[in-house]
């Protein structure tokens, strides 16, 4: 099995729980998003799943290797690729030497692995720059080289921490295309990101964590969690916001001129909202169901008071 299964994973540093109660599954060939604010435990989770940290509780199976590790984890690390938040390259060494070092650490056939690396370098626009010291590379070039390093041993499961950070739009697109291709090849990808637009473009499902697991859902499900109504009224919509605020379990609302976007916690609230608006004197032109923006859903999930 080349996906991953996580069951009740937790990590404590002394008395402090960095993350706890994580359970999710990522299928082979899936691009899975790991979302959460800074300090939510995303990096700790990835470090556990790549064998860098031992879980304090729970277990996982990453491409067939059981965690907690039984042994030094070499078998796991040969099958996973990790793109860290910082590219972590050796500045005095050339791009070729940086890659050669990791090719040797993975004990690969150098000629074949280098041929593969060159294809990736070409793909990411770094062909012809192989023999230059990495210290002279731009941030984007460094990031792309770090991605090539992550892929050079053809890992089955790939963890990418902010893969398009520092890249120009064209390079970011190249990376996104590469991610999609890797998934199509049957590789499993876990993407840690704050960039919700990128997550929307690449991921099929996401786990939202903030020290604990808040939800695991497809993006469609996530947007549906809490219905949104798009209400078009006559005149300035802001006049009706106080009436909505007075409702029990007051729904959130956003006003844009004569449009009122009402975020409901349950579908059953919809008739009540319309009735309140009418009672407040609103002349309603239209009411449509709207998908909630991912950002709204995400922010609601990671809000402190919403912690389960």
């Amino acid at each position, binding site marked *: 099995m080349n996906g991953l299964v996580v069951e009740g994973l937790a990590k404590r540093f002394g008395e402090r729980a960095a993350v706890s109660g994580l359970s999710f599954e990522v299928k082979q060939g899936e691009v899975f998003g790991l979302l959460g604010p800074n300090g939510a435990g995303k990096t700790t989770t990835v470090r556990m799943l790549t064998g860098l940290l031992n879980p304090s509780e729970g277990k996982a199976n990453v491409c067939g290797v059981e965690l907690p590790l039984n042994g030094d984890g070499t078998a796991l690390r040969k099958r996973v690729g990790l793109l860290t938040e910082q590219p972590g390259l050796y500045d005095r060494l050339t791009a070729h030497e940086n890659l050669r070092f990791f090719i040797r*650490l993975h004990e690969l056939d150098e000629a074949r692995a280098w041929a593969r690396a060159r294809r990736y370098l070409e793909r990411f626009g770094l062909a012809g720059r192989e023999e230059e010291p990495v210290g002279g590379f731009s941030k984007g070039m460094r990031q792309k080289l770090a991605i090539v390093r992550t892929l050079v041993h053809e890992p089955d499961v790939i963890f990418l921490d902010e893969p398009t950070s520092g890249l120009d739009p064209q390079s970011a697109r190249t990376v996104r295309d590469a991610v999609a291709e890797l998934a199509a090849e049957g590789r499993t990808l876990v993407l840690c990101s704050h960039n919700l637009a990128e997550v929307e473009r690449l991921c099929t499902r996401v786990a939202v964590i903030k020290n604990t697991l808040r939800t695991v859902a497809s993006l469609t499900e996530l947007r549906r969690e809490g219905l949104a109504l798009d209400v078009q009224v006559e005149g300035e919509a802001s006049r009706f916001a106080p009436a909505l605020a007075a409702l029990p379990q007051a729904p959130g609302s956003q006003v844009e001129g004569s449009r009122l976007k009402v975020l409901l916690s349950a579908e059953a609230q919809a008739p009540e909202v319309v009735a309140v608006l009418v009672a407040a004197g609103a002349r309603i032109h239209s009411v449509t169901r709207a998908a909630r923006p991912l950002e709204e859903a995400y922010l609601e999930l990671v809000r402190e008071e919403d912690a389960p």
Partner: protein
Amino acid sequence: MSTFSVRRVLAVVWKDLLDLKKNRGMLWSMLALPMVVVIMPIGVVTAYVQRPDDVSLAVMAQYYEPTVKAAQAARYLVDKVLADWFVIYLVMPVFVPILISSHAVAGEKEKRTLEPLLASPITPLELVVGKSLASLIPAVSVCLLAFAVLCVGVDVAAWPLAQELVLPNGMWAFGVLVIAPLFAFFGNGIAVLISARVGDSRLAQQLSGLFVLPLVGLAAGQFGGWLKAGTTYYALIGALVLVLDVAILVAARRLFDRERLMSRWG
């Protein structure tokens, strides 16, 4: 099941030596100390040989050894300075690995290269062995090269007086081939352990550098006439360092755990 791969160790050695070769500042720092260690005794021997009949040489020699006759004072002082100088020479095999290892180990944290490195199949033991070899190989090479230059320089300078080769002698040969590598291992081990804890190469160098001070103390004792240097004396120091080396190995094995490194440095 733990595995040990020589290929991965050699990969670390290759990378670190390549990085060192491209680091001119580090190379100059590495070579500065050997130059001083080699040039100074040659200068002192030259001074003794140029004026062997100087009465002040007899006074100096008799301060250390009252039975020395005035006519033999210059030769006695040549032999004495070379015997005493070995403790200064020993600063080199301690200090050069400290320079290299502090940079190579704590530098991985500073450059944020540690996490990708630990995420590769390399084990912490392979990493320590690789980093240590990459530090010990240049350190021991520099020491051997410095000794060769010292032998030639001292023999050329002392020939008019001694009419024989004064170096290499038994004590220096034993010291350079046995004791200096033990000291190099010690210097490297101290730098690796300190680097693993502090994670800042400059601080690691400064703290590790403090371990050179006992040698300076010994040198002061010898030049002051309180300690008498010789093969037995250096062999005793070597035995003590060997015990320390074993303790360092045990500590390094405990400290170089992937989780510990990640928690501390990540």
